[in-house]
């Protein structure tokens, strides 16, 4: 058997771990596995379906309200345009009458 083989056998020989290895390792990993202190926002996580539903309802309500306001504004806009058209028509009517009367009085003068 060569010296190389002897060295290899010595190196690969099964050795028993020291007696305090397991407790040592356990002591080192203990802090990592310890449960984290309870967060004050933990309830949100537990109530997430309710929170999600409430957020959805809130978004829907805001959306519906915004749409209602938009429709109301569109109606108001149409009413403004209608009111201005009627105003324009009536002012044109008055102007036509005044023009006609002016023409008539000028005609009388001549």
């Amino acid at each position, binding site marked *: 058997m060569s010296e190389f083989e002897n060295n290899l056998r010595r190196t690969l020989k099964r050795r028993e771990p020291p007696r305090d290895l397991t407790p040592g390792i356990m002591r080192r990993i203990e802090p990592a596995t310890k449960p984290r202190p309870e967060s004050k926002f933990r309830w949100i996580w537990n109530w997430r379906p309710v929170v999600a539903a409430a957020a959805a309802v809130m978004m829907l309500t805001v959306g519906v309200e915004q749409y209602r306001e938009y429709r109301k504004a569109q109606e108001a806009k149409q009413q403004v345009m209608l009111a201005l058209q009627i105003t*324009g028509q009536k002012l044109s009517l*008055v102007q036509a009458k*005044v023009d006609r009367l002016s023409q008539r009085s000028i005609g009388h003068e001549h």
Partner: protein
Amino acid sequence: MNTKILAAAILLAAAARSQDVPLDLFSGLMPKATGHVEVTLDASLLQMATRFMSGKDPDEAKAKSLIAGLKGIYVRSLTFAKPGDYSRADVEKVRAQLKGWSPIVSVHEADEDTGIYLKTDGEKIQGLVILSAEPTELTLVNIVGSIKPEDLKELGGKFGIPDVGDLADKAGQKKKEEE
């Protein structure tokens, strides 16, 4: 309790002041009418409408600038099936409510009666009323708030609105000629 009544009275008075002309004057004629148009726009609705008016559309842009200083636009227009469905007395009832308004144009013809009335504060126009009584149509337009004559002039050709100042001048000329 008394405070609430007082507050309600103040609010009602404020609302009545902002409207100026009682528009329920036409309600008695409503059953006789075959059609009607009602436009009731207070300051908050006008503001709301302004927010959705495009600055790109020329008509809307002009309308936006015109209604910027307004507190309200009220229109009541009734259409009748035949002449004589409303009387001259009905028109006079409406006209009687326009005390405090200065008539700038008033045209009386056999079957038609039209007038433009202004409420002014110094040189500023604070309100405009158009009362138009045609054989089968009776219309009252009340525009409340600061109106610039140049705004109305600018709208000429857009909504068919002529220059009110021009009308007033012509009416003045006619009055002088009559004298």
